[in-house]
């Protein structure tokens, strides 16, 4: 199951960054997000997977599609993007060097005990609710409230930025 999900995620991600058409990139992004939600289901974090599907796949992808439609018809139809060779090679070098470093650190350290993930039980919903709205140690009411204020600030900021400029004078 993990191998299928990994194949879907990595294949869709590669297609997402290499495809020319921007609409296809958004569609492949949707597949990547569903695959990541499947990984959360595999880790028995059902609530996280549901949040991933509803926020990312439901909200953010819709927003991208609307933005693509708004930005223009010329972009939609076969956006001829001049991918220069030197830039591709540079990006390739940067990613491969970084990937080699990170994978080496992950595989060669002694901190991560090389054990299979234990087949944990699903986190019960009342534990999540109590932790999310409690104010003791290891409880998260402050970030929860802070993120609501942050979302409000982002709504106002988005409206102000995207508003049509009024004709001055």
């Amino acid at each position, binding site marked *: 199951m993990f191998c299928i999900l990994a194949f879907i995620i990595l294949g869709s991600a590669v297609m997402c960054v290499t495809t020319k058409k921007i609409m296809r990139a958004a569609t492949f992004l949707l597949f990547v997000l569903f695959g990541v939600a499947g990984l959360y289901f595999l880790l028995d*974090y059902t609530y996280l997977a549901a949040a991933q599907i509803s926020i990312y796949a439901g909200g953010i992808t819709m927003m991208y599609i609307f933005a693509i439609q708004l930005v223009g018809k010329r972009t939609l139809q076969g956006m001829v993007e001049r991918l220069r060779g030197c830039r591709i090679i540079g990006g390739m070098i940067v990613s491969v060097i970084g990937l080699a470093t990170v994978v080496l650190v992950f595989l060669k350290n002694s901190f991560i005990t090389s054990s299979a993930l234990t087949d944990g039980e699903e986190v019960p919903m009342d534990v999540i609710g109590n932790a999310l709205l409690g104010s003791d140690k290891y409880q998260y009411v402050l970030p929860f409230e802070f993120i609501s204020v942050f979302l409000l600030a982002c709504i106002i900021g988005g409206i102000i930025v995207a508003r049509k400029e009024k004709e001055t004078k």
Partner: protein
Amino acid sequence: MVPVEFYFVLSALLFFIGVFGFVTRRNLIAMLISIELVLNAVDINFAAFNRMLFPDGQLEGFFMSLFSIGVSAAESAVAIAIIINVYRNFHSDQVNSIENMKY
């Protein structure tokens, strides 16, 4: 169950696919999509580390991942607002077209 290293290698691969896309693409929305790939890789890492370190009980990485999803939603909303405004002013959505504030 699979070994835990598989999750880390998968998230590292996803992260650097996102970095590659961010470096190569010159379209603002495509760059934003690459950033979403990077954020998803980090969220996988948080969840996998939480499952490995705290098999029962604490939910540190769980909530970190949950709040990260919320923050990235807000971030992409503001970024799309900026992109639409840029398109309205410059009639282009390539990063090369925004050079007024470069110097």
